[in-house]
Protein backbone atom coordinates (compact mmCIF):
# COMPACT_ATOMS: atom_id res chain seq x y z
CA UNK A 1 0.00 0.00 0.00
CA UNK A 2 2.52 2.47 -1.14
CA UNK A 3 1.62 5.28 -3.43
CA UNK A 4 3.59 8.31 -4.38
CA UNK A 5 2.51 11.58 -2.83
CA UNK A 6 1.22 13.06 -6.04
CA UNK A 7 -1.03 10.30 -7.37
CA UNK A 8 -4.59 10.32 -6.12
CA UNK A 9 -5.74 7.36 -8.16
CA UNK A 10 -3.56 4.32 -8.59
CA UNK A 11 -4.94 1.47 -10.63
CA UNK A 12 -2.99 -1.77 -10.60
CA UNK A 13 -3.55 -4.67 -12.98
CA UNK A 14 -7.27 -4.02 -13.01
CA UNK A 15 -9.24 -6.69 -14.86
CA UNK A 16 -12.94 -7.22 -15.36
CA UNK A 17 -14.22 -10.25 -17.22
CA UNK A 18 -17.75 -11.14 -18.17
CA UNK A 19 -17.32 -14.84 -18.77
CA UNK A 20 -14.90 -15.18 -21.67
CA UNK A 21 -15.10 -11.49 -22.55
CA UNK A 22 -12.45 -9.38 -20.89
CA UNK A 23 -13.84 -5.84 -20.88
CA UNK A 24 -10.99 -4.33 -18.87
CA UNK A 25 -7.68 -6.09 -19.36
CA UNK A 26 -4.91 -5.60 -16.79
CA UNK A 27 -5.06 -1.82 -16.80
CA UNK A 28 -2.40 -0.09 -14.75
CA UNK A 29 -2.67 3.66 -14.53
CA UNK A 30 -1.86 6.52 -12.21
CA UNK A 31 -3.65 9.81 -12.07
CA UNK A 32 -1.96 12.68 -10.28
CA UNK A 33 -3.85 14.82 -7.81
CA UNK A 34 -5.29 17.82 -9.58
CA UNK A 35 -4.73 16.30 -13.02
CA UNK A 36 -6.90 16.95 -16.05
CA UNK A 37 -6.85 13.51 -17.53
CA UNK A 38 -8.71 12.21 -20.58
CA UNK A 39 -9.50 8.64 -21.44
CA UNK A 40 -10.13 8.02 -25.11
CA UNK A 41 -10.56 5.03 -27.32
CA UNK A 42 -12.81 3.59 -29.99
CA UNK A 43 -16.36 2.46 -29.22
CA UNK A 44 -16.42 -0.68 -27.13
CA UNK A 45 -12.91 -0.12 -25.82
CA UNK A 46 -14.10 -0.52 -22.24
CA UNK A 47 -13.95 3.12 -21.14
CA UNK A 48 -17.33 3.24 -19.48
CA UNK A 49 -16.78 -0.21 -18.02
CA UNK A 50 -13.50 0.97 -16.52
CA UNK A 51 -15.38 3.94 -15.02
CA UNK A 52 -17.96 1.55 -13.63
CA UNK A 53 -15.24 -0.47 -11.92
CA UNK A 54 -13.51 2.66 -10.59
CA UNK A 55 -16.76 4.06 -9.20
CA UNK A 56 -17.72 0.73 -7.64
CA UNK A 57 -20.81 -0.09 -9.67
CA UNK A 58 -18.96 -3.09 -11.12
CA UNK A 59 -16.69 -5.42 -9.17
CA UNK A 60 -13.19 -5.98 -10.49
CA UNK A 61 -12.32 -9.57 -11.32
CA UNK A 62 -8.78 -8.94 -10.20
CA UNK A 63 -6.43 -6.06 -9.52
CA UNK A 64 -6.51 -3.19 -7.09
CA UNK A 65 -7.66 0.41 -6.96
CA UNK A 66 -6.03 2.86 -4.58
CA UNK A 67 -7.76 6.17 -4.09
CA UNK A 68 -6.06 8.84 -2.06
CA UNK A 69 -3.63 6.27 -0.68
CA UNK A 70 -6.39 3.91 0.44
CA UNK A 71 -7.28 0.55 -1.09
CA UNK A 72 -10.87 1.05 -2.21
CA UNK A 73 -11.18 -2.13 -4.27
CA UNK A 74 -13.60 -3.68 -1.77
CA UNK A 75 -15.57 -0.52 -0.98
CA UNK A 76 -19.09 -0.01 -2.23
CA UNK A 77 -20.07 2.66 -4.70
CA UNK A 78 -21.60 4.79 -1.95
CA UNK A 79 -18.49 4.51 0.24
CA UNK A 80 -16.25 5.56 -2.64
CA UNK A 81 -18.51 8.51 -3.34
CA UNK A 82 -18.29 9.55 0.30
CA UNK A 83 -14.50 9.38 0.00
CA UNK A 84 -14.74 11.87 -2.85
CA UNK A 85 -14.63 9.64 -5.93
CA UNK A 86 -17.72 10.65 -7.88
CA UNK A 87 -18.86 9.93 -11.41
CA UNK A 88 -21.38 11.18 -13.92
CA UNK A 89 -23.28 8.87 -16.21
CA UNK A 90 -23.08 8.51 -19.96
CA UNK A 91 -26.86 8.37 -20.13
CA UNK A 92 -28.13 11.04 -17.78
CA UNK A 93 -29.64 9.33 -14.81
CA UNK A 94 -31.48 11.90 -12.77
CA UNK A 95 -34.43 11.75 -10.44
CA UNK A 96 -36.89 12.58 -13.20
CA UNK A 97 -39.98 12.92 -11.03
CA UNK A 98 -38.30 15.51 -8.81
CA UNK A 99 -37.45 19.15 -9.32
CA UNK A 100 -34.05 20.36 -10.47
CA UNK A 101 -33.50 21.82 -7.03
CA UNK A 102 -34.45 18.55 -5.31
CA UNK A 103 -31.99 16.68 -7.52
CA UNK A 104 -29.09 18.91 -6.56
CA UNK A 105 -30.47 19.19 -3.03
CA UNK A 106 -30.16 15.42 -2.56
CA UNK A 107 -26.48 15.64 -3.42
CA UNK A 108 -25.87 18.67 -1.20
CA UNK A 109 -27.75 17.09 1.66
CA UNK A 110 -25.76 13.86 1.45
CA UNK A 111 -22.43 15.64 1.62
CA UNK A 112 -23.16 18.51 4.00
CA UNK A 113 -26.37 17.95 5.93
CA UNK A 114 -28.62 15.22 7.33
CA UNK A 115 -30.28 13.26 4.51
CA UNK A 116 -32.03 10.91 6.95
CA UNK A 117 -33.58 13.46 9.32
CA UNK A 118 -37.31 12.64 9.31
CA UNK A 119 -38.50 16.17 10.07
CA UNK A 120 -37.86 19.50 8.36
CA UNK A 121 -35.57 22.14 9.85
CA UNK A 122 -35.98 25.66 8.53
CA UNK A 123 -32.39 26.76 9.03
CA UNK A 124 -30.62 23.61 7.84
CA UNK A 125 -32.93 23.03 4.88
CA UNK A 126 -32.47 26.67 3.86
CA UNK A 127 -28.71 26.17 3.88
CA UNK A 128 -29.13 23.12 1.63
CA UNK A 129 -31.30 25.09 -0.79
CA UNK A 130 -28.83 27.97 -0.92
CA UNK A 131 -25.91 25.63 -1.60
CA UNK A 132 -27.93 23.84 -4.30
CA UNK A 133 -28.73 27.20 -5.91
CA UNK A 134 -25.05 28.10 -5.89
CA UNK A 135 -24.21 24.89 -7.73
CA UNK A 136 -27.03 25.48 -10.20
CA UNK A 137 -25.70 28.97 -10.78
CA UNK A 138 -22.23 27.65 -11.48
CA UNK A 139 -23.55 25.41 -14.26
CA UNK A 140 -25.79 28.17 -15.61
CA UNK A 141 -29.12 26.55 -14.78
CA UNK A 142 -30.69 29.06 -12.47
CA UNK A 143 -33.70 29.98 -14.53
CA UNK A 144 -36.15 27.31 -13.37
CA UNK A 145 -35.04 25.37 -10.31
CA UNK A 146 -38.52 24.09 -9.53
CA UNK A 147 -39.07 22.51 -12.95
CA UNK A 148 -39.28 18.75 -12.98
CA UNK A 149 -36.10 17.14 -14.29
CA UNK A 150 -38.19 15.03 -16.62
CA UNK A 151 -39.25 18.24 -18.39
CA UNK A 152 -35.68 19.39 -19.14
CA UNK A 153 -33.88 19.19 -22.45
CA UNK A 154 -31.03 16.76 -22.88
CA UNK A 155 -28.38 19.45 -22.50
CA UNK A 156 -30.02 20.85 -19.38
CA UNK A 157 -30.11 17.40 -17.84
CA UNK A 158 -26.39 17.05 -18.39
CA UNK A 159 -25.91 20.39 -16.65
CA UNK A 160 -27.92 19.11 -13.70
CA UNK A 161 -25.64 16.06 -13.64
CA UNK A 162 -22.62 18.35 -13.38
CA UNK A 163 -24.26 20.42 -10.63
CA UNK A 164 -25.01 17.25 -8.69
CA UNK A 165 -21.45 16.03 -8.98
CA UNK A 166 -20.10 19.39 -7.81
CA UNK A 167 -22.51 19.24 -4.87
CA UNK A 168 -20.92 15.97 -3.75
CA UNK A 169 -17.76 17.90 -2.85
CA UNK A 170 -15.61 15.56 -4.92
CA UNK A 171 -11.85 15.10 -4.80
CA UNK A 172 -12.04 13.41 -8.15
CA UNK A 173 -14.72 13.46 -10.82
CA UNK A 174 -15.15 10.84 -13.51
CA UNK A 175 -17.05 12.44 -16.40
CA UNK A 176 -18.46 9.79 -18.73
CA UNK A 177 -18.98 11.39 -22.16
CA UNK A 178 -20.23 14.61 -20.62
CA UNK A 179 -20.75 16.47 -23.88
CA UNK A 180 -22.56 13.71 -25.79
CA UNK A 181 -25.66 15.25 -27.31
CA UNK A 182 -24.80 18.76 -26.17
CA UNK A 183 -25.00 21.74 -28.49
CA UNK A 184 -21.81 23.64 -29.31
CA UNK A 185 -22.72 26.35 -26.79
CA UNK A 186 -23.48 23.80 -24.11
CA UNK A 187 -20.21 21.98 -24.83
CA UNK A 188 -18.32 25.24 -24.47
CA UNK A 189 -20.12 25.96 -21.26
CA UNK A 190 -19.18 22.51 -19.96
CA UNK A 191 -15.51 23.06 -20.82
CA UNK A 192 -15.62 26.37 -18.98
CA UNK A 193 -17.10 24.69 -15.92
CA UNK A 194 -14.33 22.09 -15.87
CA UNK A 195 -11.70 24.79 -16.39
CA UNK A 196 -13.15 26.74 -13.49
CA UNK A 197 -12.99 23.81 -11.08
CA UNK A 198 -10.49 24.26 -8.26
CA UNK A 199 -7.16 22.63 -9.02
CA UNK A 200 -7.45 20.32 -6.04
CA UNK A 201 -10.31 18.53 -7.79
CA UNK A 202 -8.95 15.88 -10.12
CA UNK A 203 -10.81 15.36 -13.37
CA UNK A 204 -10.88 12.27 -15.55
CA UNK A 205 -13.02 12.51 -18.64
CA UNK A 206 -14.11 9.93 -21.19
CA UNK A 207 -14.81 11.87 -24.33
CA UNK A 208 -15.29 11.34 -28.03
CA UNK A 209 -15.08 15.00 -28.92
CA UNK A 210 -11.34 15.36 -29.43
CA UNK A 211 -11.55 19.16 -29.47
CA UNK A 212 -12.68 18.96 -25.86
CA UNK A 213 -10.06 16.33 -25.04
CA UNK A 214 -7.22 18.48 -26.31
CA UNK A 215 -8.70 21.62 -24.81
CA UNK A 216 -9.02 20.19 -21.31
CA UNK A 217 -6.60 17.35 -20.89
CA UNK A 218 -3.01 17.61 -19.80
CA UNK A 219 -2.63 13.90 -20.02
CA UNK A 220 -4.37 11.39 -22.25
CA UNK A 221 -4.72 7.63 -21.90
CA UNK A 222 -5.89 5.47 -24.75
CA UNK A 223 -7.87 2.32 -24.25
CA UNK A 224 -8.49 -0.23 -27.00
CA UNK A 225 -10.15 -3.62 -26.54
CA UNK A 226 -9.89 -3.28 -22.79
CA UNK A 227 -6.14 -2.67 -22.82
CA UNK A 228 -4.30 0.53 -22.11
CA UNK A 229 -2.25 1.08 -25.27
CA UNK A 230 -0.88 4.54 -24.64
CA UNK A 231 -0.54 7.10 -21.90
CA UNK A 232 1.10 10.47 -22.28
CA UNK A 233 0.76 14.16 -22.99
CA UNK A 234 -1.66 15.18 -25.73
CA UNK A 235 1.33 15.83 -28.03
CA UNK A 236 2.68 12.33 -27.53
CA UNK A 237 -0.73 10.80 -28.12
CA UNK A 238 -1.24 12.74 -31.34
CA UNK A 239 1.87 11.25 -32.81
CA UNK A 240 1.64 7.80 -31.29
CA UNK A 241 1.49 5.15 -34.00
CA UNK A 242 -0.24 2.50 -31.91
CA UNK A 243 -3.01 4.95 -31.09
CA UNK A 244 -3.56 5.85 -34.70
CA UNK A 245 -3.60 2.21 -35.63
CA UNK A 246 -6.17 1.28 -32.99
CA UNK A 247 -8.23 4.41 -33.12
CA UNK A 248 -8.27 5.39 -36.73
CA UNK A 249 -7.37 2.29 -38.63
CA UNK A 250 -5.32 3.77 -41.44
CA UNK A 251 -6.62 7.28 -41.53
CA UNK A 252 -4.25 10.21 -41.58
CA UNK A 253 -3.01 12.26 -38.69
CA UNK A 254 -4.39 15.53 -39.99
CA UNK A 255 -7.88 14.17 -40.54
CA UNK A 256 -8.38 13.58 -36.87
CA UNK A 257 -6.11 15.87 -34.95
CA UNK A 258 -5.68 18.66 -37.43
CA UNK A 259 -8.68 20.62 -36.27
CA UNK A 260 -7.53 20.80 -32.68
CA UNK A 261 -3.98 21.91 -33.34
Amino acid at each position, binding site marked *: MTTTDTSILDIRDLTLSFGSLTAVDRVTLRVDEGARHALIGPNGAGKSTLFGVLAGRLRATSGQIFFNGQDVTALSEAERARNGLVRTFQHSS*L*FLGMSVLDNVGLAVERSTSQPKRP*WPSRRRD*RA*VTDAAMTHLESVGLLSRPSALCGALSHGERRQVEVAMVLACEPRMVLFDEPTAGMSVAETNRFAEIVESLPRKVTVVVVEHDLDIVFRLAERVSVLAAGKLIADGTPEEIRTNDAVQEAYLGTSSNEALFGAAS
Partner: protein
Amino acid sequence: MSATNTLSGLTADQPGTTKLFNTGAPRPAFRLFVAVVILLILVALPFFLAPYPLSLAGRALAFGLLVVSVDLLTGVMGMPSLGQVAYFGAGAYTAGLVGIHLSSSGLVQLLIGTLAGAALALLTGAVAVRTAGIVFLMITLAIGELAHIGVDSLSVVGASNGLAGIPPVSVLPGGEPLTVPGYLYWWVLAVFVIGFCAAVILNRSPLGRSMRGVRDGELRLRALGQNTYSVKLIAYTIAGGVAGAAGTAWVAQTQFISPGDLGFDMAAFALLSVVLGGAGSLWGPVIGAGLVIFVRDWLGGYIEGRGTLLLGVVFVIAVYVLPRGVAGIKGRSLRRKSSDS
Protein backbone atom coordinates in the same frame (compact mmCIF):
# COMPACT_ATOMS: atom_id res chain seq x y z
CA MET B 1 -42.16 25.31 2.09
CA SER B 2 -41.24 28.24 -0.02
CA ALA B 3 -37.77 29.49 0.69
CA THR B 4 -36.74 33.02 -0.11
CA ASN B 5 -33.40 33.31 -1.76
CA THR B 6 -30.66 34.82 0.27
CA LEU B 7 -28.15 34.64 -2.53
CA SER B 8 -27.63 37.92 -4.24
CA GLY B 9 -28.31 38.03 -7.93
CA LEU B 10 -30.55 34.99 -7.91
CA THR B 11 -33.73 36.76 -7.05
CA ALA B 12 -33.92 38.42 -10.42
CA ASP B 13 -35.10 35.37 -12.37
CA GLN B 14 -36.81 33.60 -9.52
CA PRO B 15 -38.52 35.98 -7.14
CA GLY B 16 -38.80 33.99 -3.94
CA THR B 17 -40.89 31.18 -5.32
CA THR B 18 -38.23 28.52 -5.04
CA LYS B 19 -39.50 25.42 -3.32
CA LEU B 20 -37.12 23.25 -1.39
CA PHE B 21 -39.43 20.25 -1.50
CA ASN B 22 -41.57 19.99 -4.56
CA THR B 23 -44.59 18.32 -3.05
CA GLY B 24 -46.92 20.07 -5.47
CA ALA B 25 -48.15 22.81 -3.17
CA PRO B 26 -48.87 25.87 -5.28
CA ARG B 27 -50.62 27.92 -2.59
CA PRO B 28 -49.85 26.80 0.96
CA ALA B 29 -52.46 29.16 2.43
CA PHE B 30 -55.18 27.68 0.23
CA ARG B 31 -54.14 24.16 1.11
CA LEU B 32 -54.20 24.98 4.80
CA PHE B 33 -57.69 26.44 4.39
CA VAL B 34 -58.97 23.28 2.69
CA ALA B 35 -57.33 21.11 5.35
CA VAL B 36 -58.98 23.10 8.16
CA VAL B 37 -62.41 22.90 6.48
CA ILE B 38 -62.11 19.12 6.03
CA LEU B 39 -60.93 18.74 9.61
CA LEU B 40 -63.91 20.76 10.86
CA ILE B 41 -66.30 18.57 8.85
CA LEU B 42 -64.70 15.45 10.32
CA VAL B 43 -64.93 16.88 13.83
CA ALA B 44 -68.59 17.75 13.31
CA LEU B 45 -69.60 14.29 12.02
CA PRO B 46 -70.92 13.01 15.41
CA PHE B 47 -73.57 15.75 15.34
CA PHE B 48 -75.02 14.44 12.07
CA LEU B 49 -74.43 10.71 11.99
CA ALA B 50 -76.18 7.86 13.80
CA PRO B 51 -73.97 5.56 15.90
CA TYR B 52 -73.50 2.89 13.21
CA PRO B 53 -72.38 5.17 10.38
CA LEU B 54 -70.24 7.00 12.89
CA SER B 55 -68.49 3.78 13.89
CA LEU B 56 -68.00 3.12 10.18
CA ALA B 57 -66.42 6.56 9.86
CA GLY B 58 -64.12 5.75 12.78
CA ARG B 59 -63.07 2.50 11.13
CA ALA B 60 -62.53 4.32 7.85
CA LEU B 61 -60.19 6.76 9.65
CA ALA B 62 -58.20 3.93 11.25
CA PHE B 63 -58.04 2.13 7.92
CA GLY B 64 -57.13 5.46 6.27
CA LEU B 65 -54.10 5.77 8.52
CA LEU B 66 -53.05 2.22 7.56
CA VAL B 67 -53.38 3.30 3.93
CA VAL B 68 -51.17 6.35 4.63
CA SER B 69 -48.46 3.99 5.90
CA VAL B 70 -48.80 1.86 2.75
CA ASP B 71 -48.60 5.02 0.65
CA LEU B 72 -45.39 6.14 2.37
CA LEU B 73 -43.77 2.98 1.05
CA THR B 74 -45.67 2.59 -2.21
CA GLY B 75 -46.14 6.15 -3.38
CA VAL B 76 -43.33 8.11 -1.76
CA MET B 77 -40.58 5.47 -1.77
CA GLY B 78 -41.81 3.51 -4.79
CA MET B 79 -41.94 0.14 -3.01
CA PRO B 80 -45.46 -1.35 -3.20
CA SER B 81 -46.11 -3.32 -0.03
CA LEU B 82 -48.70 -5.83 1.17
CA GLY B 83 -47.10 -6.23 4.59
CA GLN B 84 -48.31 -3.18 6.50
CA VAL B 85 -51.19 -5.23 7.94
CA ALA B 86 -48.61 -7.07 10.05
CA TYR B 87 -47.61 -3.84 11.83
CA PHE B 88 -51.23 -2.73 11.93
CA GLY B 89 -51.94 -6.04 13.68
CA ALA B 90 -48.97 -5.61 16.01
CA GLY B 91 -50.33 -2.21 17.06
CA ALA B 92 -53.90 -3.47 17.38
CA TYR B 93 -53.10 -6.61 19.38
CA THR B 94 -50.64 -4.75 21.60
CA ALA B 95 -53.19 -2.03 22.28
CA GLY B 96 -55.83 -4.66 23.03
CA LEU B 97 -53.56 -6.54 25.43
CA VAL B 98 -52.50 -3.31 27.12
CA GLY B 99 -56.18 -2.40 27.42
CA ILE B 100 -57.07 -5.72 29.05
CA HIS B 101 -54.09 -6.15 31.33
CA LEU B 102 -52.41 -2.81 31.88
CA SER B 103 -54.17 0.44 31.18
CA SER B 104 -57.32 1.59 29.46
CA SER B 105 -55.61 4.85 28.54
CA GLY B 106 -55.76 5.46 24.80
CA LEU B 107 -52.56 7.51 24.97
CA VAL B 108 -50.64 4.67 26.60
CA GLN B 109 -52.06 2.21 24.06
CA LEU B 110 -51.20 4.52 21.19
CA LEU B 111 -47.63 4.91 22.39
CA ILE B 112 -47.01 1.21 23.02
CA GLY B 113 -48.90 0.11 19.90
CA THR B 114 -46.89 2.52 17.72
CA LEU B 115 -43.63 1.26 19.20
CA ALA B 116 -44.72 -2.34 18.67
CA GLY B 117 -45.50 -1.67 15.01
CA ALA B 118 -42.20 0.14 14.50
CA ALA B 119 -40.19 -2.55 16.31
CA LEU B 120 -41.69 -5.36 14.26
CA ALA B 121 -41.14 -3.31 11.09
CA LEU B 122 -37.49 -2.77 12.01
CA LEU B 123 -36.95 -6.51 12.57
CA THR B 124 -38.71 -7.71 9.43
CA GLY B 125 -37.71 -4.70 7.33
CA ALA B 126 -34.03 -5.45 7.90
CA VAL B 127 -34.54 -8.34 5.46
CA ALA B 128 -37.40 -7.01 3.35
CA VAL B 129 -35.84 -3.71 2.23
CA ARG B 130 -32.84 -5.50 0.79
CA THR B 131 -35.15 -6.42 -2.06
CA ALA B 132 -37.13 -4.31 -4.50
CA GLY B 133 -40.03 -4.51 -6.91
CA ILE B 134 -41.94 -7.75 -7.23
CA VAL B 135 -39.65 -9.56 -4.77
CA PHE B 136 -40.31 -6.90 -2.15
CA LEU B 137 -44.04 -7.21 -2.81
CA MET B 138 -43.88 -10.99 -2.31
CA ILE B 139 -41.77 -10.73 0.86
CA THR B 140 -44.15 -8.19 2.38
CA LEU B 141 -47.05 -10.45 1.38
CA ALA B 142 -45.31 -13.25 3.28
CA ILE B 143 -44.78 -10.98 6.30
CA GLY B 144 -48.48 -10.11 6.34
CA GLU B 145 -49.54 -13.73 5.97
CA LEU B 146 -47.10 -14.87 8.68
CA ALA B 147 -48.55 -12.30 11.07
CA HIS B 148 -52.03 -13.46 10.14
CA ILE B 149 -51.22 -17.14 10.71
CA GLY B 150 -49.19 -16.29 13.80
CA VAL B 151 -52.04 -14.66 15.73
CA ASP B 152 -54.44 -17.23 14.33
CA SER B 153 -52.60 -19.98 16.20
CA LEU B 154 -51.68 -18.06 19.34
CA SER B 155 -54.15 -18.93 22.09
CA VAL B 156 -53.08 -16.10 24.45
CA VAL B 157 -54.56 -13.62 21.97
CA GLY B 158 -57.69 -15.70 21.35
CA ALA B 159 -56.39 -17.55 18.30
CA SER B 160 -58.93 -17.53 15.46
CA ASN B 161 -61.68 -16.23 17.77
CA GLY B 162 -59.84 -12.94 18.10
CA LEU B 163 -59.06 -10.83 21.12
CA ALA B 164 -62.34 -9.99 22.83
CA GLY B 165 -63.20 -8.23 26.06
CA ILE B 166 -61.14 -5.14 25.40
CA PRO B 167 -62.46 -2.37 27.68
CA PRO B 168 -63.37 1.01 26.17
CA VAL B 169 -60.45 3.43 26.06
CA SER B 170 -60.10 6.53 28.16
CA VAL B 171 -57.80 9.34 27.08
CA LEU B 172 -55.64 9.64 30.19
CA PRO B 173 -54.79 6.80 32.61
CA GLY B 174 -57.67 6.41 35.06
CA GLY B 175 -59.83 8.79 33.06
CA GLU B 176 -63.49 8.42 32.10
CA PRO B 177 -64.02 5.59 29.54
CA LEU B 178 -65.18 6.86 26.15
CA THR B 179 -68.46 4.97 25.88
CA VAL B 180 -70.33 7.70 24.01
CA PRO B 181 -69.87 6.98 20.26
CA GLY B 182 -69.05 10.62 19.49
CA TYR B 183 -66.27 10.85 22.06
CA LEU B 184 -64.84 7.55 20.89
CA TYR B 185 -64.93 8.77 17.30
CA TRP B 186 -63.10 11.94 18.32
CA TRP B 187 -60.36 9.89 19.90
CA VAL B 188 -59.95 7.85 16.69
CA LEU B 189 -59.94 11.09 14.72
CA ALA B 190 -57.24 12.47 17.04
CA VAL B 191 -55.04 9.41 16.42
CA PHE B 192 -55.63 9.76 12.69
CA VAL B 193 -54.67 13.44 12.71
CA ILE B 194 -51.51 12.74 14.72
CA GLY B 195 -50.51 9.93 12.35
CA PHE B 196 -51.35 11.90 9.23
CA CYS B 197 -49.39 14.93 10.45
CA ALA B 198 -46.42 12.66 11.17
CA ALA B 199 -46.61 11.41 7.59
CA VAL B 200 -46.82 14.97 6.20
CA ILE B 201 -43.82 16.04 8.29
CA LEU B 202 -41.87 13.02 7.09
CA ASN B 203 -42.82 13.75 3.49
CA ARG B 204 -41.42 17.28 3.77
CA SER B 205 -38.25 16.27 5.56
CA PRO B 206 -34.85 15.42 4.11
CA LEU B 207 -35.68 11.75 4.66
CA GLY B 208 -38.84 12.23 2.61
CA ARG B 209 -36.74 13.64 -0.22
CA SER B 210 -34.29 10.76 0.09
CA MET B 211 -37.28 8.38 -0.09
CA ARG B 212 -38.39 10.01 -3.34
CA GLY B 213 -34.79 9.66 -4.47
CA VAL B 214 -35.03 5.90 -3.85
CA ARG B 215 -38.24 5.88 -5.89
CA ASP B 216 -36.82 7.80 -8.84
CA GLY B 217 -33.33 6.35 -8.94
CA GLU B 218 -31.96 4.24 -6.15
CA LEU B 219 -28.74 3.48 -8.01
CA ARG B 220 -28.19 7.17 -8.68
CA LEU B 221 -28.72 7.96 -5.02
CA ARG B 222 -26.10 5.37 -4.15
CA ALA B 223 -23.72 6.95 -6.66
CA LEU B 224 -24.16 10.21 -4.73
CA GLY B 225 -22.74 8.41 -1.71
CA GLN B 226 -26.02 7.74 0.01
CA ASN B 227 -26.48 4.47 1.90
CA THR B 228 -29.91 3.67 0.50
CA TYR B 229 -30.36 0.63 2.73
CA SER B 230 -30.51 2.77 5.86
CA VAL B 231 -32.85 5.26 4.17
CA LYS B 232 -35.20 2.43 3.28
CA LEU B 233 -34.99 0.78 6.69
CA ILE B 234 -35.65 4.01 8.60
CA ALA B 235 -38.59 4.81 6.33
CA TYR B 236 -39.91 1.27 6.65
CA THR B 237 -39.68 1.47 10.44
CA ILE B 238 -41.53 4.79 10.56
CA ALA B 239 -44.22 3.46 8.20
CA GLY B 240 -44.53 0.46 10.52
CA GLY B 241 -45.05 2.82 13.45
CA VAL B 242 -47.78 4.68 11.54
CA ALA B 243 -49.47 1.34 10.76
CA GLY B 244 -49.17 0.40 14.44
CA ALA B 245 -50.87 3.66 15.45
CA ALA B 246 -53.62 2.87 12.94
CA GLY B 247 -54.05 -0.51 14.63
CA THR B 248 -54.53 1.10 18.05
CA ALA B 249 -57.18 3.40 16.56
CA TRP B 250 -58.94 0.42 14.98
CA VAL B 251 -59.02 -1.46 18.28
CA ALA B 252 -60.22 1.62 20.15
CA GLN B 253 -63.11 1.89 17.69
CA THR B 254 -64.11 -1.77 17.48
CA GLN B 255 -62.95 -3.04 20.92
CA PHE B 256 -62.17 -6.25 19.11
CA ILE B 257 -59.39 -7.55 16.87
CA SER B 258 -59.23 -10.90 15.12
CA PRO B 259 -56.84 -12.52 12.64
CA GLY B 260 -59.35 -11.68 9.90
CA ASP B 261 -58.57 -7.98 10.39
CA LEU B 262 -55.01 -8.55 9.20
CA GLY B 263 -55.72 -10.95 6.39
CA PHE B 264 -54.83 -10.64 2.75
CA ASP B 265 -58.14 -8.81 2.10
CA MET B 266 -57.10 -5.96 4.33
CA ALA B 267 -53.62 -5.75 2.75
CA ALA B 268 -55.07 -5.80 -0.75
CA PHE B 269 -57.72 -3.19 0.06
CA ALA B 270 -55.06 -0.95 1.56
CA LEU B 271 -52.93 -1.15 -1.58
CA LEU B 272 -56.06 -0.70 -3.67
CA SER B 273 -56.91 2.46 -1.76
CA VAL B 274 -53.46 3.86 -2.50
CA VAL B 275 -53.92 3.22 -6.23
CA LEU B 276 -57.48 4.56 -6.13
CA GLY B 277 -56.43 7.70 -4.30
CA GLY B 278 -53.22 8.37 -6.22
CA ALA B 279 -49.90 6.99 -5.00
CA GLY B 280 -47.45 9.58 -3.70
CA SER B 281 -49.99 12.13 -2.56
CA LEU B 282 -50.88 11.61 1.09
CA TRP B 283 -54.43 12.96 1.10
CA GLY B 284 -55.55 11.15 -2.06
CA PRO B 285 -55.13 7.63 -0.64
CA VAL B 286 -57.04 8.67 2.50
CA ILE B 287 -59.98 9.54 0.27
CA GLY B 288 -59.40 6.23 -1.49
CA ALA B 289 -59.57 4.47 1.88
CA GLY B 290 -62.83 6.24 2.74
CA LEU B 291 -64.23 5.23 -0.64
CA VAL B 292 -63.24 1.58 -0.14
CA ILE B 293 -64.86 1.37 3.31
CA PHE B 294 -67.94 3.26 2.11
CA VAL B 295 -68.49 1.04 -0.93
CA ARG B 296 -67.73 -2.25 0.77
CA ASP B 297 -69.46 -1.74 4.12
CA TRP B 298 -72.17 0.82 3.37
CA LEU B 299 -73.26 0.45 -0.25
CA GLY B 300 -72.49 -3.27 -0.02
CA GLY B 301 -75.13 -3.54 2.69
CA TYR B 302 -77.83 -2.65 0.17
CA ILE B 303 -76.93 -5.39 -2.29
CA GLU B 304 -76.76 -8.24 0.17
CA GLY B 305 -73.11 -8.24 1.04
CA ARG B 306 -71.71 -8.07 -2.46
CA GLY B 307 -69.65 -5.04 -1.49
CA THR B 308 -66.43 -6.59 -2.68
CA LEU B 309 -67.87 -7.15 -6.14
CA LEU B 310 -69.03 -3.55 -6.23
CA LEU B 311 -65.55 -2.49 -5.13
CA GLY B 312 -64.09 -4.37 -8.09
CA VAL B 313 -66.38 -2.44 -10.43
CA VAL B 314 -65.45 0.87 -8.81
CA PHE B 315 -61.79 0.02 -9.17
CA VAL B 316 -62.07 -0.79 -12.88
CA ILE B 317 -63.98 2.44 -13.51
CA ALA B 318 -61.42 4.41 -11.49
CA VAL B 319 -58.51 3.04 -13.51
CA TYR B 320 -60.19 4.27 -16.69
CA VAL B 321 -61.49 7.61 -15.44
CA LEU B 322 -58.73 8.54 -12.97
CA PRO B 323 -55.50 6.86 -14.05
CA ARG B 324 -53.59 8.85 -11.45
CA GLY B 325 -56.14 8.39 -8.73
CA VAL B 326 -58.17 11.00 -6.91
CA ALA B 327 -55.06 13.11 -6.34
CA GLY B 328 -54.46 13.13 -10.10
CA ILE B 329 -57.48 15.42 -10.61
CA LYS B 330 -55.55 18.28 -9.06
CA GLY B 331 -52.34 17.15 -10.72
CA ARG B 332 -53.80 17.68 -14.19
CA SER B 333 -54.14 21.41 -13.80
CA LEU B 334 -50.74 21.56 -12.07
CA ARG B 335 -48.99 19.81 -14.91
CA ARG B 336 -50.58 22.12 -17.41
CA LYS B 337 -49.22 25.08 -15.48
CA SER B 338 -45.69 23.69 -15.20
CA SER B 339 -45.50 22.96 -18.93
CA ASP B 340 -46.45 26.57 -19.65
CA SER B 341 -43.63 28.05 -17.65
